[in-house]
């Protein structure tokens, strides 16, 4: 596809918000940024199971921070101004977008995936926190850079308006956002400070969030819950719950192992700026917990495929999460001690 108004380069990423953040910052002048660095500076890693709350009739579990925060935090760390707008009027929302696109300024939109035409039907639930970049317009067609896709895709104005005004939880309300133009490349010192801040905030979120259902203790909380699911919910519902856990952990966007692998990559990429060799060791620790998350997913799939069905199988699954919780607690404590020493 030939672009008329911009020389934007499409970037495929594991996660949509990381991808949008990285591609936009690179386009506007910050070439030091990568997907893992954006994820780490934005303190993207998280875990929470919200009690008393259901999503699609299953447990409300998340492996990442609130939508929008990664972009905001990474930009703040690099001293990049951010504009974010929501709209009441559909016309104004489209006009403002057109104005920017035709001026050659690629712009990010938050959208719902239920009506996202180029997504396979299997993925189209009412999920409203997807991110993409609108890069150009020709006639009635918008050229879209969706980080999940391998190349650019198109949507007409009706289709784009529909996903921008999807309804339900996290309704995007036409939301668009973008960094400033002509950004200055950050100094290595700025990168370092951004990375340290991102790590500190992530340690806080994972280690010290109040309550027992968030951060590393949240993982053990889910583990203990799982052991009760078979008797409490019955076989069928317990299977659906486990399937939901695995979807949140592995579905498009996490880069595998509930973002733990991206975090491992981040710690390695942080090394040129922080120059502490312990980072490699810690990176391996996160690779190891990511692998354990994936092994747990295989155990869960044995249950929801119906191959495993005893209480012992559920206990095994629960214990895996309790073990991961302990390992991640250790890893984050080490990480916290490490960045605490660095000035």
């Amino acid at each position, binding site marked *: 596809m030939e672009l008329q108004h911009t020389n934007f380069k499409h970037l495929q990423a*594991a996660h949509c918000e990381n991808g949008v953040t990285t591609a936009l910052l690179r386009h506007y002048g910050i070439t030091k940024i990568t997907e893992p660095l954006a994820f780490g500076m934005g303190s993207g890693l998280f875990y929470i199971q919200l009690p008393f709350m259901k999503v699609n009739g299953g447990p409300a579990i998340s492996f990442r921070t609130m939508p929008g925060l990664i972009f905001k935090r990474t930009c703040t760390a690099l001293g990049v101004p951010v504009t974010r707008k929501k709209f009441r009027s559909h016309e104004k929302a489209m006009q403002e977008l057109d104005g920017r696109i035709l001026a050659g300024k690629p712009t990010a939109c938050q959208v719902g995936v239920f009506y996202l035409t180029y997504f396979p039907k299997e993925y189209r639930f009412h999920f409203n926190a997807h991110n993409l970049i609108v890069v150009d317009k020709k006639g009635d067609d918008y050229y879209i850079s969706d980080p999940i896709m391998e190349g650019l895709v198109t949507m007409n104005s009706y289709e784009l308006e529909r996903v921008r005004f999807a309804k339900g939880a996290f309704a995007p309300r036409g939301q668009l956002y973008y960094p400033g133009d002509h950004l200055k490349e950050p100094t290595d010192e700025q990168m370092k400070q951004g990375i340290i801040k991102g790590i500190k905030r992530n340690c806080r979120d994972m280690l010290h969030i109040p309550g027992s259902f968030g951060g590393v203790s949240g993982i053990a909380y889910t583990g203990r819950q799982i052991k009760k699911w078979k008797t409490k919910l019955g076989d069928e519902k317990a299977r*659906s719950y486990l399937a939901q856990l695995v979807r949140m952990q592995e579905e498009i966007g996490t880069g595998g192992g509930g973002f733990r692998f991206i975090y491992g990559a981040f710690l390695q990429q942080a090394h040129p700026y922080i120059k502490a060799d312990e980072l490699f060791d810690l990176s391996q620790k996160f690779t190891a917990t990511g692998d354990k998350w994936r092994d747990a997913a295989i155990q869960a799939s044995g249950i929801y495929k119906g191959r495993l069905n005893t209480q012992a199988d559920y206990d095994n699954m629960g214990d895996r999460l309790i073990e991961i919780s302990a390992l991640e607690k250790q890893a984050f404590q080490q990480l916290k001690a490490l960045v605490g020493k660095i000035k």
Partner: protein
Amino acid sequence: MKKEEIPQDNGALGKIAKEVTYVVDENGNYSTGQSTGWDVKTEALNVAWHDVEAKIEAAKQQVLSGGASPILYFMEKKIMDLNILASYTGYWKWTIKKHLKPSGFQKLPADKLKKYAALFEVSVEELKNPFNTVNRE
């Protein structure tokens, strides 16, 4: 996960795009690789869709037995719940609850029927008689 361990199963997304995964080499150094899908998560997605299908079928039986209006059936078919339906239509949830009953549905004026039909992407005729395939024009 190592690069050679990246699962390359048939996934729904694999049909249109390979997924980026983060993997390590033998020295633990990270790079990215692509995956066409992983059976473990394809199965998880199948479980979710199986649940959706079961809800649609249950709604269908309720409508056929006169326990609910066709709105319930189409709501389930579009994977919506009361909250989502309320925000798309702009009606209050208790209003929609009335429309979900056959008696409330009978009283719906033409414009509201049209609104529901447009949202569910069917004709008003289909909205009224969702399972009547013989007489559909």
